[in-house]
């Protein structure tokens, strides 16, 4: 049976269909989850997609964080459920304190959409184990508030513990501290990434196929954890 990956739709989610497509192309079953439904329906992993949840008013992700599904998801993530937050999803994970730091207004103050080179800095996460360490990839970036900030101590700690997952190369599109494009939690099961891997999964519509690696990685991760004795299995964790 193929893995079941949930994709959450909040009011104002936009890239949920794309994330579901990427999940399918990676060979898993995409399960649509609704923000108001606290039940994770037994999925093995979750993607929080890009978009403008609640219009991105106030701060991006600030309101979505309180959705019923997020309460359940937070507990499950702490229990090891793999969670990938893309763009708005990354912002929500930070607002929900599942990842440290915050995403602030791009320093040039504009929304920016371009094809962006990244370097994968850590392959020790549920979503990057399929990449080579140091691998350079090209995927779209598109955001207005993608400038990652955290205090120096947090940044040093992220670096020291290998939790900087990807960095911008050939130009930082938003002013992120230390060119950070993606980070992970301590356990490596929760990853937030500002650029959009789900937009680089088909030659016809994306700048590359590099994004697919994030979605196949989690399947490898799930296959690995599934082999572990019961109880270590992240799936099925619920609140």
């Amino acid at each position, binding site marked *: 049976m193929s893995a079941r990956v949930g994709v959450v739709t909040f*009011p*104002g989610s*936009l*890239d949920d*269909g*794309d994330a579901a*497509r990427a999940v399918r192309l990676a060979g898993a079953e995409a399960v649509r989850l609704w923000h108001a439904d606290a039940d994770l329906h037994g999925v093995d992993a979750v993607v929080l997609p*890009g*978009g*403008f949840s*609640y*219009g*991105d*008013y106030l701060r991006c992700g600030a309101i979505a964080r309180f959705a019923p599904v997020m309460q359940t998801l937070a507990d499950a993530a702490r229990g090891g459920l793999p969670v990938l937050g893309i763009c708005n999803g990354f912002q929500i994970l930070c607002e929900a304190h599942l990842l440290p730091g915050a995403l602030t207004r791009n320093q040039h103050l*504009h*929304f*920016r*959409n*371009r094809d962006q080179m990244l370097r994968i800095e850590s392959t020790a996460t549920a979503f990057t184990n399929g990449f080579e360490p140091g691998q350079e990839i090209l995927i*779209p970036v*598109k955001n*207005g508030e993608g400038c990652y900030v955290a205090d120096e101590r947090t940044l040093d700690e992220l670096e020291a513990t290998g939790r900087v997952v990807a960095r911008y190369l050939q130009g930082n599109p938003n002013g992120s501290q230390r060119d950070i494009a993606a980070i992970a939690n301590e356990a490596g099961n929760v990853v937030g990434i500002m650029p*959009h891997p*789900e*937009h680089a999964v*088909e030659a*016809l*519509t*994306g700048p590359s196929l590099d994004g697919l690696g994030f979605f196949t990685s989690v399947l490898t991760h799930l296959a690995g954890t599934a082999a572990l004795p019961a109880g270590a299995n992240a799936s099925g964790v619920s609140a």
Partner: protein
Amino acid sequence: MTTEPATPQPAPPVVVEGPAVDQPPAVEQPAAGGFADVAIDAEPADVDTVERAAGTPEESQPYAELGLQDDEYERIREILGRRPTQAELAMYSIMWSEHCSYKSSKVHLRQFGEKAPKSDRMLAGIGENAGVVRITDELAVTFKVESHNHPSFVEPYQGAATGVGGIVRDILAMGARPVAVMDPLRFGAADHPDTARVFPGVVAGIGGYGNCLGLPNIGGEVVFDPCYQGNPLVNALSIGVLPVSRLQNKAAAGVGNVVILMGAKTGRDGIGGVSVLASATFDEESEQRRPSVQVGDPFIEKLLIESCLEIYDAGLVTGIQDLGGAGLTCALTETAAAAGTGMRVELEKVPLREASMEPHEILASESQERMLLIIEPAKLDAVLAIADKWGVLATAIGVVTEPDPDAKSGRLIITWRGQIVVDAPPGSLADDGPVYARPMREPSDLILLQADRAETLPRPATPGELRQTLLTMIGSPNLCDKSWVTEQYDRYVLGNTVLAQPEDAGVIRIDEESGVGVAISLDGNGRYARLDPYNGAKLALAESYRNVAVAGGTPIAVTNCLNFGSPEDPGVMWQFAEAVRGLADGCQELGIPVTGGNVSFYNQTGSVAIHPTPVVGVLGLVEDVNARVPMGFGSDGDVIMLLGE
């Protein structure tokens, strides 16, 4: 529905300054000034009812300030058999405005229908919210371009943003899911200080709204020319996809069906010229009642889109119409007129942002993100449940009523707290507006302009000069790289963008399985059209047609946005007539129909009109998007060929 202010306004429009008119003599004003709380303000005597209008035939009304001619006002009195109430006067002035009635352009636009080649692809054409074209047996595409020029000069960000919002609702009203936007833009000189205000604001507004809706921007134009200094052009196109079986229409059919207003609350947005009805006194209160800029909320629009689509798919709608520039007035009259029914509306049920709004203000409000739905009573609960799921307000405000036994049409009766404030035949508002054959005359300077030929310009004589010319050209604002603009737009969202900037045409995949898609391009050249509007329009069509063809599409349908100066200027009217004739002839020659479009008049600063600027959009069918043709050289050693003369 269109989204320009309902009353034609010379630039800069009066929206900023508030009504710049003399105080109309004897309009009765609410004693409380209309600003007290609703409860206190509810004195029946405050409202100009039908009964009161019948009893006060001599009361003078500010129809001229509302843009109505003497004879137009007389006709309204004839139709009603009495003087109109304030609310009726507001409604007629809106619906009979140039913008809604097409009174100056109608006689010319007919050619699009008359000269159109037969097409079995067209499922809905001119007269509908947007044209609909069949792509496969199961799928259809709808597309349309509209202007939001004047509001974008006043408040560039919101003007442009609500322009996108407006055209997207047109597409939605046809039953389609909007899947992309495009934005042909014209600004004044790139180095003019006011361009530094307008240009970034417009681009941010288009991006802000489109990005937040999750619609990829797949193309557009950015042109700088001093003729647009006081009157930029902000045109927006949207394209949507629908199963053929989901095609919607706007007719308010079915006596007893419920009229639902869905979406944002109604506020004093963009009330425009109608505010003169409330401006007899310029005290502090009326100061606050100035017509206000329309502010868009793309988040609500996104929810509106999702709930409408869910409602369509569940088969719950009888008729639907978006609310745009003429707000409820247009939606109520057009839906009833289209069905030949009557309608009874209780206006106080409309959810308001400001409790003190009066009937004519509610009817004229241009508040964004609203749709009008006609629903069978048995399906009402299901509709309300879907709206609730998405967190969108949906309110029953009225009911469809019988047509008169004698006439084919019914009456639109609008009450305000139990009193009748409107009682009129909807068709008289929606369809029977005045039509003018305006005088036309070739501009007297045209011969001189045409005589000033490019051959007289100095030519680069040396390689160095040639180099310099080339560098100057590619560095010029009109030819330079446009990524400062396009990077502010999301072109990836929805995952079906096959070609976008900097390609000649946008290409999107419509169906993931079969790979069928569409190509679309928008083009216009005001300088050509200024020299020769007939051929200028044809050239715009030809360019757009070529752009679609080189991307791999087979052109099948045309939309257009005709941006011109004042129709009351015979020179402008001549330009307009020539451009329409050129476009209609061009379409006939190429064998593709015009399926819809938009006319924007009064684009001028003082008495100086912009260059006539017909913008033409061509839609092409791409059988398999895998075979699309990107521009640029493919690989080393490829042969380069030049086709044509």
